[in-house]
């Protein structure tokens, strides 16, 4: 059956995503919250995360482009990104944010620039993973199946 094939594809893909640390158990917690009253909850929150993170990263870039970097403002942005990545389960993004936060506290522009590059990269990677997961979920539901709950 098509839905069975898609479910297996989804589980196999998700296993790699979890094993490589892109997502953690928090993502599973969000899946468990999904119910009939909000059947697209994970998709909605995931989409919000991707949109907001993109804007935050652009914001970080603008702050670091200034000659005199406002490290407080930068850190506030980084902490926001750290918080939302933790809430969606985007572990690798969160981990880079922690290093970024430390660089902000040290007032190290060089450190912050390096972290910005890393966080932008991790964001793009997790974006691709999430978009693939969402696409597979949509296909499973269209084929009449149910989306398997993932685990780390």
């Amino acid at each position: 059956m098509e839905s069975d094939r898609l479910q297996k594809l989804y589980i196999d893909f998700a296993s790699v995503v979890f094993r490589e640390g892109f997502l953690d158990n928090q993502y599973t917690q969000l899946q468990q919250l999904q119910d009939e009253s909000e059947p697209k909850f994970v998709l909605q929150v995931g989409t919000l995360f991707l949109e907001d993170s993109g804007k935050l990263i652009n914001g970080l870039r603008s702050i670091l482009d200034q000659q005199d970097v406002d490290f407080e403002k930068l850190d506030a942005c980084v902490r926001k990104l750290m918080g939302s990545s933790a809430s969606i389960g985007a572990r690798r993004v969160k981990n880079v944010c922690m290093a970024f936060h430390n660089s902000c506290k040290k007032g190290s522009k060089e450190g912050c620039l390096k972290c910005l590059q890393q966080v932008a990269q991790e964001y793009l990677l997790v974006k691709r993973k999430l978009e693939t997961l969402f696409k597979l979920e949509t296909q499973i539901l269209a084929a009449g199946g149910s989306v398997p709950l993932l685990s780390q």
Partner: protein
Amino acid sequence: MSSPRGGDKEGGRDGERQIHVLAVDDSSVDRAVIAKLLRSSKYRVTAVDSAKKALELLGTEPNVNMIITDYSMPEMTGYELLKRVKESPTLREIPVVIMSSENDPDKINRCLEEGAEDFLLKPVRPSDVSRLCGRMRS
């Protein structure tokens, strides 16, 4: 309105009246997650994106059983919101829970000393919300 605190069968119902929680977070992701966690426990939830909007709502909507707020927000922090609530004769009985992604002992102690009911580390879990059940204002 005068049911004993937390003394009901379902987490979100206090006698006939549904318990109303005000969630405050400037992050749309975190706001969506905390609102969903609270709704899953059958609480009525109003979610706003700033402490200023929270105070405006509290001025017009007296029936709030708990406030759960992020610590780090622009313009007015969750800590400042906590202080404003605890200084108000009409609002001071409302329990205030602070959320933060940072495990900062100084920050935590400051909030608890100012009268915060609890301090939750993000990401907030369903077990954190269950823990709050008995602390809602009746």
